[in-house]
């Protein structure tokens, strides 16, 4: 068993809705080993996206610790956390979240602007990432000139271009037709299998979950079952 890359201990999170405090996650503890492809499942409002946001370092816990690659990210100051995200987290969103005024190439290059790479090195990294998602011929296209599936592939290239420790994907196939969704899932599976990327996937879609090596069910903020998917 490889050592855990993500280690979550006693994490609690609640939101304020008006004067009410709504608990979202209650005392969550689990590990994710390096090279894992984990699907987080559960009904709407179960807290799976919140958990993903906490792991990705864009939201803060109320209590508990989240260690990723040995770093307790709950202790990082805001600017350090931003820097940490830039280097260690690749984001894949449901609606791709590409910057509409930037070309595919420039969108993929964005996270590299947060590194000390030279322009030439950045160019090489971006070309490689676009090659991985098979979109080298579309690098000068703007997002509006690409299909949904292509946009999501650009987003995946953007997520992997910095070679992050973990990839987090929130309903990455939620806005795609069946065929494109299959392509995206296959791409993610390949990234996990061939490049050993640790992927955490939040989804409703049982077909998407099937691709994962393991599935974690959340219900009402509590972990329900943790089982290996049939692989």
């Amino acid at each position, binding site marked *: 068993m490889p050592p855990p890359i993500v280690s979550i201990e006693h994490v609690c999170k609640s939101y304020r809705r008006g004067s009410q405090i709504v608990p979202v996650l209650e005392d969550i503890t689990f590990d994710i080993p390096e090279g894992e492809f984990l699907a987080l499942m559960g009904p709407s409002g179960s807290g799976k996206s919140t958990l993903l946001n906490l792991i990705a370092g*864009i939201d803060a816990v109320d209590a508990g610790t989240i260690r990723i690659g040995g770093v307790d990210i709950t202790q990082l100051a805001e600017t350090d956390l931003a820097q940490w995200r830039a280097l260690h987290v690749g984001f894949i969103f449901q609606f791709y979240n590409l910057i509409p005024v930037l070309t595919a190439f420039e969108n993929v290059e964005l996270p590299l602007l947060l590194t000390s790479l030279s322009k030439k090195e950045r160019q090489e990294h971006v070309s490689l990432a676009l090659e991985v998602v098979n979109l080298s011929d579309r690098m000068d296209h703007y997002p509006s000139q690409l299909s949904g599936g292509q946009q999501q592939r650009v987003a995946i290239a953007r997520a992997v271009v910095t070679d992050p420790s973990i990839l987090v994907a929130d309903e990455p196939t939620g806005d795609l037709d069946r065929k494109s969704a299959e392509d995206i899932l296959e791409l993610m599976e390949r990234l996990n299998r061939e490049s050993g990327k640790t992927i955490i996937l939040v989804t409703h879609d049982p077909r998407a979950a099937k691709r994962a090596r393991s599935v974690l069910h959340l219900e009402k903020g509590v972990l329900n079952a943790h089982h290996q998917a049939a692989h």
Partner: protein
Amino acid sequence: MREKSRGNASDRNACRLPGFGVIPVSYSFRNLWTRRLTTVLTAGGMALVVFVFAAILMLAEGLKKTLVETGSWNNVLAIRKGAVTEVQSGIDRAQAALIETQPEVSSGPDGKRLLAKEVVVLISLLKRGTDKPANVVIRGIGEQSLALRPQVKLLEGRLPRPGSSEVIAGTSIAGRFQGGGIGETLRFGMRDWMIVGIFDAGKTGFNSEIWGDADQLMQAFRRTAYSSVIFALRDSAAFDLMKQRLENDPRLTVEMKRESEYYKEQSEMMAKFLTILGLSLTVIFSFGAIIGAMITMYAAVANRTGEIGTLRALGFRRSSILGAFLMESLLLGLVGGCIGLFLASFMQLVTISTMNWQTFSELAFSFALTPEITLLSIAFSLVMGFVGGFLPAVRASRMNIVEALRAG
């Protein structure tokens, strides 16, 4: 586990470099380009303000330039002590004669002293096209007056004969006033005066004057004293000593000024007035333009909430977001500034004629664009962009990442 993370390729980049994490200017620029119509309308508002701003500075500058170029550094003007202008001044014949004998006065090639006793009178003439009267300076000149002002050139006709009721007119007078053209007659001082020549004095205030024989004009206006005595210095450096000596001479009640200084002082009050009036107006106008920019930028921030969330999630810091939105509004200001300045530059083709309150006479001058005015106008437009964009940029930079992503 730590070892593993150290082995991660991205950790090699963990050191921070200056300028790292800056969102490229092209991002801000293309966002402006994407919403061209709003950009043009907002920048248009700023352009109008910059246009007014630049035009007023150009006007004050043109006035200054015209009056400063009127005088020469080597010429000395003597006026009565306490008089601010030649019109208010009076120097009687005895005093004028005393000044004429001073050793500092230079001599011309013919051996005559380069000195002119002049009389300046204001008369009212009707403008061409309208029947509105305006004050015009009539200058009674001496034999050496033209030699003292080499910038004054006779364009047409001839000089007035001494002892006759003949005058010559500056080009601005010939074009703008009824009876100002060559061969025409003007009536003032209970006499008819024939215009026998037109002179061009370049871009100087003399262009807005009428010149005739000093003795004839003194008779016509029943003057017993000259208004000023002007002479060239033998040695320009001797001015200070001579000024001190003559101003303390008990037989004289005069004040000596270099001619260029005298004209510069004449422009100062009006130039200052124009500048203060203009700047206060443009500052008030600029509030409108700033609010316009603010509304545009707030709308841009609201429309791009998701984008902001994405950039922040990717690791761009609050300061990067602040910088990108500020850059966008600075660019917006720059576009406005350039358009406004471009339009204002055409004002250089315009010559206007207006009353100089200090001399109570009509003065024709052009708008003058200088590098300082260009810089000031661009700086002004950038300030408008900055002030307009600051609050929206702060809002953008303060967004909560999760909420921003959800809104997008």
